């Protein structure tokens, strides 16, 4: 009986024991989750109770915030690490691309690295040989094929690496975020190649922050949060669900209060459109109950990137001693569009009555993501924390 199931996952879970990992990079990727998990105990479930089934020919996008367990799930599916619980059944030859250029050695030439990388990705030497010319042509670095790759520019390096990967012919392809490399033109080429793969009826599993790419390429979507699957179904509904999740998660998580101030809610919302992107702008809204009378009241907002780089620290006096009263205060601020670059951010809120008297501090609240998907204009990923639209003046003097 020929089965139509490509991948079937049941009861899948992966537990990490905190403090056992010696590797700094793994630790840093888990840091965000550590903060909340550390209080609960030593075990941390990166993926938990995951069940799903993928049919042959499905192109599935997995979305979720950083630390949602997407990468761990891919590692489990590609057999890099073994699950703590559950079972995975895979029908067909799998190739997983969690990075481009795995195993590339700088001292070896482009030609040698094609063989090396190809066999690492699961091709036989014979297969690599047959596809060698196509790979070189696709990469566009034919001229330098016998030069050690350490002399390549990073763009050439990535193009060669992706070309090898693009010529894999697996029945199931697992891809993590690899499209986030290279220039805009090359990304377009990569997306084109991926749609070809999908069009050939292969199964593709794709993790990305690039919502636009998921919308375009995928037929199914899975939304993950805190190691669990919250939604699984049509990709457009999945994207909608993900944005909805991003809006609600702020206020649900944190209820903070002391005997002076009680935070009722804090929300970050797009000003235009349905989700926060570079060109949507966003507003933040704080609601709190003041429990004291006759106190000055000032609220300061500090916005930081996820690497804890402070972007601004800005506050406002709400009222002075005389008219301060018990009751509910609401305040709203707005950050215009084209200021923040794509990335993850959070707020710190300080409510004080003077420079020396802090009533309540909340170190981290309202985590949100600015997505790269622009409402208008180009959506290339660029470095930097801010992304203003600058005006230029030109001047030319002929010599």
């Amino acid at each position, binding site marked *: 009986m*020929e*089965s139509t199931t490509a991948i079937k996952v049941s009861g899948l*879970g992966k537990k*990490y024991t905190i403090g056992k*990992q*010696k*590797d700094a990079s*793994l630790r840093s990727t888990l840091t965000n989750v550590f903060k909340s998990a550390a209080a609960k105990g030593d075990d941390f479930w990166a993926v938990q109770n995951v069940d799903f089934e993928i049919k042959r020919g499905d192109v599935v996008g997995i979305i979720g915030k950083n630390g949602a367990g997407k990468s761990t799930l891919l*590692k*489990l599916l*590609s*057999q*890099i*690490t*073994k*699950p*703590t*619980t*559950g*079972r*995975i*059944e*895979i*029908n*067909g*030859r*799998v190739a*997983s691309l*969690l*990075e481009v250029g*795995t*195993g590339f*050695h700088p*001292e*070896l030439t482009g030609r*040698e690295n094609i*063989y*090396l990388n190809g*066999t*690492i*990705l*699961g*091709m*036989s*030497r014979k297969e690599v040989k047959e596809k060698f010319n196509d790979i070189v042509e696709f990469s566009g670095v034919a001229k330098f094929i016998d030069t050690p790759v350490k002399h390549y520019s990073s763009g050439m390096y990535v193009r060669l690496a992706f070309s090898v990967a693009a010529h894999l012919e697996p*029945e199931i392809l697992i891809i993590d975020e690899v499209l986030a490399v290279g220039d805009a033109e090359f990304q377009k080429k990569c997306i084109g190649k991926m749609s070809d793969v999908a069009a050939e009826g292969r199964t593709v599993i794709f993790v990305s922050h690039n919502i636009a790419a998921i919308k375009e390429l995928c037929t199914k979507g899975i939304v993950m949060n805190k190691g669990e699957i919250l939604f699984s179904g049509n990709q457009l509904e999945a994207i909608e669900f993900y944005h909805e999740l991003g809006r609600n998660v702020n206020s649900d998580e944190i209820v903070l209060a002391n005997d002076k101030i009680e935070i009722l809610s804090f929300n970050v919302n797009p000003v235009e459109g349905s989700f926060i992107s570079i060109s949507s702008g966003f507003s933040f809204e704080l609601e709190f109950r003041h429990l004291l009378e006759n106190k000055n009241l000032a609220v300061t907002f500090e916005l930081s990137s996820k690497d804890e780089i402070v972007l601004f620290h800005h506050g406002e006096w709400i009222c002075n001693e005389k008219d301060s009263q018990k009751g509910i205060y609401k305040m709203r601020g707005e950050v215009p569009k084209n200021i923040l670059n794509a990335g993850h951010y959070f707020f710190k809120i300080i409510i004080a009555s003077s420079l020396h008297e802090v009533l309540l501090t909340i170190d981290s609240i309202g985590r949100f993501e600015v997505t790269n998907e622009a409402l208008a204009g180009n959506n290339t990923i660029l470095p930097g924390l801010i992304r203003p639209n600058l005006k230029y003046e030109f001047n030319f003097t002929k010599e």
Partner: protein
Amino acid sequence: MSKTTIIDAKHRQLFPNFSEIRRFKDLFLTLAWRDFRVRYAQTTIGFLWAFIQPIVTLVILTLVFGRFAKVDTGSIPHALFTTCGLITWTYFAFVMTHSGKSIIESQGMIKKIYFPRLIIPLSKAVVGLIDVSVTVLILIVLMFYYGITPEATAWLAPIFLIIGMIAALGVGIWLSALTIRFRDFQHIIPLMVQLGMFITPVAYPAGTAVKELPQWAESLYYLNPMAGVVQGFRWSLFGGDPPGNMMYISFAMIIVIFVTSLMYFKRVEDEIADFV
């Protein structure tokens, strides 16, 4: 559908999956080839280093043991005697050192792609064969120089060499797996190589050492897996001390080390990506 893979958290195997390793044969060869290609990259004299290393070791050992300490090697010239010992010992030391740190060195790959992890230490065993051939070449040159022909038992030499390879692999696989959990082994391995050379009859006949030891210490001496291999390999070529019953202690050790190394490796294999 051609191939079904089942990953089950509850399912644990005792030994690595050898048929799977065979499927990754090309990767295994490519990795060995890469190591060889990269080894002398950017050096001025390149492959010549493969000759200089054993020759320098040989000269020093011959000076210290042959000239200064006047170790009696019977009818065989000391230089020849030592070269013979170096063939198996150097291979063992190479595989031990390189397999030991191999998994850590390949962590970039291990975290990003699946393949049977055992391939990594195994591929180092292939690279080490290059050094063996170089030392064999030096041995042949010395045999011509001294005008000495091998004994009729020389056909046994490859068998001792294979036993030596199994010993090297066993220790190498153990060390590669241990180094993942305990980085301390990165510092222990060079010590093992340094001391191992002296407790192995490379530059002196095993008889000389054993003669000075009490009976109980003799079996202890042969717990060193390479003691029997180095001695047996030399005996098969040039005679001298015939390998006694004690040699079987070495061989038994080799089997124990090799089998347990596979079992231990399998046990840590699934978690390697979480540890490195």
